[in-house]
């Protein structure tokens, strides 16, 4: 099959990427609410993504878990409807609303059919403006949250992440799980939920994106239908968080056959001029799945894990660089040793020209493929707004990837990657890792 070999050789040099075929419009409603829109009338529905910046980090002092419980209750009764009436009304419209909260934002993902979009929006408006926080709903959902907290306490993955966060950020909101603790959640009262709602659901931290079967004018009206009358301001954002975790290993003893390790060090801000160089570097190091150095060294060559990866995690109040691996108790020490060595090798030598070209081809070629579907487009658009990007980013992003040089990466890798600052939290019964638990 000579033909195949020839084609493969050509393929490696001929990958000129397609351009992202989307047109982003910035829409402002009559009432002054802004949103980004990609119109697409092929399928009769619209995907809507709504964000409120701050999320669970806006919990009032002593009220850890209030924003999370509040968010979970938004669909549990609103206006003159109880939880069941609300669910029936939503289902009768075949609309879908998903509410979720994390450390940096409260997220609402909605899908609405064109045929009943206004009615669906009215319903969603109720859940955002007038959640009831009925006593029975609070107790029901509190029980669910407490169950989740108890489950996390026995889940090696959650234990590792939560331990890492606590060690890195201490008393800052980033240092604890948005769910709160069993004690803090038990102590929450209805007034705390009303307060949490007022702290987060406000105009000054609102971001909206829409994609699908809706015109700019229709979207303007929809925005006011959803958000008119929302309070102007929420609670002030918490301060930047100081990452306080030196390099090392922390073992959390837990009886399970496979140890789970979360590792990390300080990262880089999203708006740092070197962010693209760091991003490309990390794609070679550990973000790229198959072909990344960590995956090659830890999985493909040694069979030590099913998956290993590293990623830049520029949270709003603390940039981090994190990673994860899971390996049998008897082998995890070797996996950690290999990861540390790869961290050091990248810091020392950067990437080869061949690696750089391969990863640029991948990143620039893959980017336009992200925009296939209303739901995906709306998610990307709202994320861009929260990252402070402009709509033309979709056309300039690949040029910025292409502009990264080997020298950029050498410089950034040697500044950013600190093998001595890398800290591993290992949950399990790892052999050959002697550090005592905290």
């Amino acid at each position: 099959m000579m033909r195949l070999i020839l084609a493969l050789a050509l393929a490696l040099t001929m990958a000129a990427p397609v351009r992202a075929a989307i047109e982003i419009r910035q829409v402002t409603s009559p009432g002054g609410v802004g949103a980004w829109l990609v119109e697409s009338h092929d399928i009769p529905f619209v995907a809507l993504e709504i964000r409120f910046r701050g999320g669970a980090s806006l919990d009032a002092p002593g009220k850890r878990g209030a924003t999370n419980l509040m968010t979970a209750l938004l669909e549990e009764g609103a206006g003159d409807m109880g939880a069941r009436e609300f669910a029936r009304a939503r289902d009768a419209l075949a609309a879908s609303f998903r509410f979720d909260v994390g450390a940096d934002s409260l997220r609402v993902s909605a899908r609405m059919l064109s045929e009943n979009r206004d009615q669906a929006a009215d319903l969603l408006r109720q859940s955002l403006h007038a959640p009831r926080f009925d006593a029975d709903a609070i107790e029901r959902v509190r029980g669910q949250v407490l169950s989740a907290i108890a489950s996390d306490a026995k889940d090696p993955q959650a234990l590792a992440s939560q331990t890492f966060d606590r060690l890195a950020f201490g008393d800052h909101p980033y240092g604890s799980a948005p769910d709160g603790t069993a004690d803090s959640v038990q102590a929450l009262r209805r007034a705390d939920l009303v307060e949490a709602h007022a702290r987060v659901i406000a105009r000054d931290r609102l971001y909206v994106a829409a994609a699908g079967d809706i015109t700019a004018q229709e979207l303007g009206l929809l925005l006011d239908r959803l958000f008119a009358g929302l309070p102007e301001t929420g609670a002030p954002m918490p301060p930047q968080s100081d990452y306080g975790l030196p390099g090392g290993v922390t073992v959390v003893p837990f009886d399970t056959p496979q140890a789970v390790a979360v590792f990390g060090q300080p990262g880089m801000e999203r708006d740092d001029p070197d962010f693209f160089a760091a991003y490309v570097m990390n794609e070679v190091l550990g973000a790229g799945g198959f072909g990344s150095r960590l995956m090659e060294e830890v999985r493909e060559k040694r069979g030590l894990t099913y998956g290993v990866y590293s990623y830049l995690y520029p949270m709003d109040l603390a940039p981090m660089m994190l990673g994860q691996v899971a390996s049998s108790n008897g082998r995890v020490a070797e996996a950690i040793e290999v990861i540390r060595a790869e961290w050091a090798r990248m810091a020392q030598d950067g990437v080869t020209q061949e690696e750089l070209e391969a990863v640029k081809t991948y990143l620039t070629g893959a980017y336009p493929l992200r925009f296939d579907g209303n739901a995906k487009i709306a998610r990307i658009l709202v994320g861009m707004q929260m990252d402070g990007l402009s709509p033309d980013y979709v056309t300039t992003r690949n040029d910025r990837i292409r502009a990264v040089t080997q020298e950029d990466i050498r410089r950034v890798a040697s500044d950013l990657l600190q093998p001595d600052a890398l800290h591993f939290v290992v949950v399990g019964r790892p052999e050959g890792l002697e550090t005592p638990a905290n």
Partner: protein
Amino acid sequence: MRRLRNLLVLLLIWAGPATADRVTDFTLDNGLQVVVIEDHRAPVTVNMVWYRVGAADEPPGVSGIAHFLEHLMFKGTDEVAPGAFSRIVKAQGGSDNAFTSWDYTAYFQRVAADRLDLMMQLEADRMTDLRLAGPDVETERDVILEERNQRTDNDPGALFREQMRAALYLNHPYGIPIIGWRHEMETLSKADALAFYDTYYAPNNAILVVAGDVTPDAVRDMAQTHFGGLAPSDALPARVRPQEPPHLAERRVMFEDPRVAQPYLMRSYLAPERDSGDQGRAAALTYLAELLGGEGATSFLGERLQFERQVALYTGASYGGLSLDDTAFNLFVVPAPGVSLETAEDALDKALAAFLREGVDPALFDSLKSQLLAAEIYARDNIQGLARRYGRALTSGLTIEDVQAWPDVLQAVKPEDVMAAAHDLLKGGNAVTGWLSRPVAEVTEVTQ
């Protein structure tokens, strides 16, 4: 609140119906079936090769070999070096992966539409030309053992569900986990993998599904060019697995593990799957799962166990109609704090009896019906999802016509069909009921 935390995620998988528009299919002379799903909204295509073979087709004693082979399919051919497959795809800006179930093994790439030709070339190459080096096989066996650790052995809920399934199936290999039993995985060899490959990987045992910004004519030309020259197998085994005898006895699975934070109970019934030309009962069971245990705030179990009484934190039901042989219908109850599994099971039994007595809530039934129609609209937003829908159906004994008839079959279901299916399913005396809990000594400890 719908965040169920890795406990009941399975419940949310809604095996919805398909759109009839813009789907073309044809078969090459060597038996390769081709399905083209057009969607020209974005310059993207998904290229999938589905083999009509999965874990339930494995010979006895080598459980996990179908999945192990899936991993080894990335370990090289004469032309493509070990591990190079994914690198070539990535050099095109594409991504790729593969997955294995009881009834199928599938490989896919997601690339710009103008790179499709090369993807087909790569898939055709490894359909018949796999070359494995011994050390690669040994290393990859360690990888699948770590995968089993990660998916199953580190998660008491996964171990429990594995035991439940093994108890449900008395004779059919659906009772064996896809990833394999650990003691058998540890002995899987290169020879086992190649024997399975030689038996089942051939164009007349495969389906090419291409979805996205493509035309049927172009796909036909490319498929002919790359797959057309591959010889069909004349020794494909008939897909006949040992079938289930009548289930005549109640069975119980009591699984205890100190890592359990949230006890729950699960009940499994053997249930008919979607059969070609005869999908009516499966459609009724699809409604039944939603009516009993769909949306918590409206479903029968949710109303009775979560709202009217606070017996449960969560309730749920799942039914997977896409299956070559008899499938499972499952119910779940996660008890509220202080409620024993015994009390929860008693409440479940009473609720099921009440459902059989009271019948279907007509308003909820109508709402479900329109949601199923809407699900078709939402499904069109995800081409990879559509491609999977066809691949799964065609490897599970259904035809394209069955897939396209399914929305109408669902719309034709009547409340009395659902109740007939419910009486049949829930007649009693033949289910598997399982409790996942902590050992007693641990339960009395103070929660940390």
